[in-house]
Structure formats: C-alpha cells, structure tokens
C-alpha cells in the first residue's frame, strides 16, 4: 500500500511537472500564433526586408504590452499607399513610440483601442498630459471615443487647448459616447456653415465664445437638436 501511495505521489509529481512544462509556453505559443498571422498578412504586401523589420517592431511592441495589431495595420496602410519600405519602417517605429507615449499618459491598464486613439491624438498635436486628464476625468471608463472626439476637433482646426478643454468638460459631465459624437457633429456642422472652429466649439460646449472663462452649459452644448450656430453677418459701416 505504501509502495502504491509512493508511486502515486511520484506520478502526481510527474504530472505536475509535465503540466508546467507544457502550459508554461502557452503565452509564447499564442504570441507566436499572432506573429504567424501578422507574417501571413504582410507577405506579398511589403518586401521581405520590410516585413522582417515590421515583424520585429511588432514583436517588440507586444513585449512592451502595446497593440502589435495596430502596428501591422499601420504597415499595411503604408503598403497600400505604395510607400517605400524604409519609409514604412520609419513611420511604424514612430507609431510604436507614440503608442508607448500614449500608454504612459493613459496608464498601464489602457485598452488597445484607447492607445490607438491616444496615438492618433498625439500625432495631431494633442499633448500627452491632456490624454492623462481625459483618462482621469472618466476613471474606470473606456475613453476611446473621448480621445477620438478631441482629435476630430483638432483636425477641424479647433485649437488644441479649446478642444481638450471642451472634451474634458463634456467627459466630466458624464456624457455618453453617442452624446459626445453628436456634439462633435454639431460643431462640425457649425464650422461648415462658416463659424470659426474655436467659436463653434465654445458656443456648443460652454455657451459662450470664450472657452477659457466658460463652464459647461447644459442648455447650450448638450442639446443635440439645437439650431446650428450661424456666423454673425458682417456689419456694414458707412464710410
């Protein structure tokens, strides 16, 4: 009986060791599977040297906890644009660095899409500390849309400080993603109609033309069906 128990203990130990040996490489196997997928998608789209370098950058990003998928997509974007390999590699490296900076600003627990949105915001000139402010304005929530709305406003020539102050105010107000997007669309409509970007943003969000002095105006900014803000007609002065 003792011999059987001893043997069972030995077998159990062997089982545990074997499980450890087999299970330990599972993450690396998964990563390897991801790299295989990246390799398959890059093959034929970029030359071999570029593919190897992009894969290396993606692997490096993955070890840093950055979304390697986004890096591969960026390389494929360059490939479809028929950019030379060296340019693709350079831009992909810069993109990885922006993702890294976005993670520093948004925190280590930021989700991949938040990092992608953060990297795009950084590319458009939004400072990293603004990203951190947006993160802190919605603790525990996904801030992808808030970051994207900030970037979209900046792309519409809204000054960075006005755009970020507006989104921070809106995010702190507990608006949903859909409401944020609706307000952004309203601002874009106003800009199309000729309102200055900063003015349109300030009016929609703060109800005043001076974003620095305004507080969030629920009446002015959050009404999604509010009439477009039309620019004041030029006043004609008699000579």
């Amino acid at each position, binding site marked *: 009986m003792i011999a059987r128990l001893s043997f069972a203990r030995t077998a159990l130990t062997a089982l545990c060791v074997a499980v450890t040996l087999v299970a330990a490489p599972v993450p690396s196997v998964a990563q390897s599977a991801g790299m295989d997928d990246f390799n398959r998608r890059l093959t034929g789209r970029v030359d071999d040297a570029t593919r190897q370098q992009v894969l290396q950058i993606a692997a490096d990003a993955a070890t840093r906890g950055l979304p390697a998928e986004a890096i591969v997509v960026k390389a494929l974007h360059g490939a479809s644009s028929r950019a030379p390999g060296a340019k693709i590699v350079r831009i992909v490296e810069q993109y990885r660095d922006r993702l890294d900076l976005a993670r520093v600003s948004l925190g280590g627990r930021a989700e991949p899409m938040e990092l992608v949105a953060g990297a795009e915001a950084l590319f458009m000139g939004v400072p990293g500390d603004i990203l951190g402010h947006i993160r802190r304005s919605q603790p525990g929530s996904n801030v992808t849309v808030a970051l994207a709305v900030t970037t979209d406003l900046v792309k519409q020539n809204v000054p960075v400080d006005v755009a970020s102050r507006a989104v921070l105010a809106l995010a702190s107000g507990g608006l949903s*993603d859909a409401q944020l997007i609706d307000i952004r669309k309203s601002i874009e409509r106003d800009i199309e109609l000729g309102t200055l970007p900063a003015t349109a943003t300030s009016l929609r969000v703060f109800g005043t033309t001076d974003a620095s002095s305004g507080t969030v105006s629920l009446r002015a900014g959050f009404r999604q069906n509010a009439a477009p803000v039309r620019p004041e007609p030029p006043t004609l002065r008699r000579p």
Partner: protein
Amino acid sequence: MIDQDSALDLDNEADDELIAAVTRTLREPVAVNSRLEFAIMAQVRAAAAEQAAAVPAPRVLTPVPGRLAALAAWWRQPRTLTLSPLTGLACAMAFGGVIVLSAWLARETAPTTMIAAAPAAEAAVRDGVRGGTMPVAMTASNGAQMVRFSYVAPADAQAVSLVGTFNDWDPNAARLTPVERDGVWTVDVPLLGGQTYQYVFVVTNDAGEERWLADPNAPSLPADEFGQPRSALTLARSSS
C-alpha cells in the same frame, strides 16, 4: 604506538566494511524459479479469497442511505490514483494540446477582417444617401454595427473599393457595388462600436488608374503620415 582513538577508528572501519558486505549480500536478487513463484502466488490469492469469504459482511450501523446519499458518499470517498509517469506526461500533453488548440481556434474565428459586402443599393437610393456613412442595422453577432459606406463616383469609375483600418487597407477586401442611378456606390461593413476607424475610397477609372479619395461627406482631414487623404469614423458603443 597506537592510541585508543586510533584503535576505535580501526574498529569502526572494520564494522563499516562488514556492514557493507552484508548489505551487498542482502541486496543481491534471489533467483526464484518462475514456476515456484507462480504456484506460491496462486496459493496466496486462494487463501486471500477464502479469508474474504469467511469474513462476515460489515454491519450497517446507520439506516440504509438513500440513493442520493450513496451517490454523495461515492463522490466523497477518497481514492488512490495510480498512473505511470508516462501516462501522466501523456495526460499533460493532451491538456496542453487542448489549450493550444483552443487558442488557435479562437484566433481563427476572431473577426480580424470584418467585411461583409452586402450592398443594399436600392435602400441607399430610397434613403437618399449620396455619400458618407450611416448605420443601417445591428448585427446579432459580436455586437458589431452594420455601417453603410456610400460614395458618388465619377462617370468613368470602373471600380470603387473601401480601404481602412478595419480591413488591412486591402483594396480587394470591400468593393462597393454601383447603384443603378446617380453613380452611387455602396457597401455595408460591420464595425464594432466604441472605436475609431480611418478609411478612404479607392476609385479606379477606365484607364486603370487608382485614386485615393477621402469621403467628401465627412469633414476634411489633414493627410496621414504617408501623405494620403483619409477620413475618420468614430462609432459609439451600441446601447444594446
């Protein structure tokens, strides 16, 4: 002259040698005739069977348990598991194989390229769509929203594709279908909410020339890192 300690050491050494010799002898395997061993073991088994038969069945001190209690007792009763290291290794390999296979299958079924060309062109005309994007339906799978991309292409357009961050910027992944009237081309693409996407239309003309064109109905954006035009789309998370 030999002192007393040295004498003791010599005695100990002699004892050690004797013990070692005895141990060697005892450890030597005893050759037993296999027939004799078989006969002995047969008798042992027979004696054990007789003894077991002679022992009266244990008295049940408690009331006869119900079927459920018996089942519970069966589950609670400890058992000795005996298996060879080789079997254990095989089990572990099978366990690991299942994990790896699951990871592989999950990767295969993941919606990496979320494209479904479902034109619904008539609906586009009916809805008065002349370009841009609009949500058209909710899909049941993976919470994606079906978004219709439409584009009014020039008369010499032979093909219009939609490329973006959602389909690896592959011109062959999502081809727009022309609506019969007004040069409207459309494609429906399932996209996940709560995310931001970049896209552009690729228009191929009669001469086979490709042009990358931003969505004219979306706000104009500065060129991307590769110097190409682009449009952006941010989707809110679906409320469902």
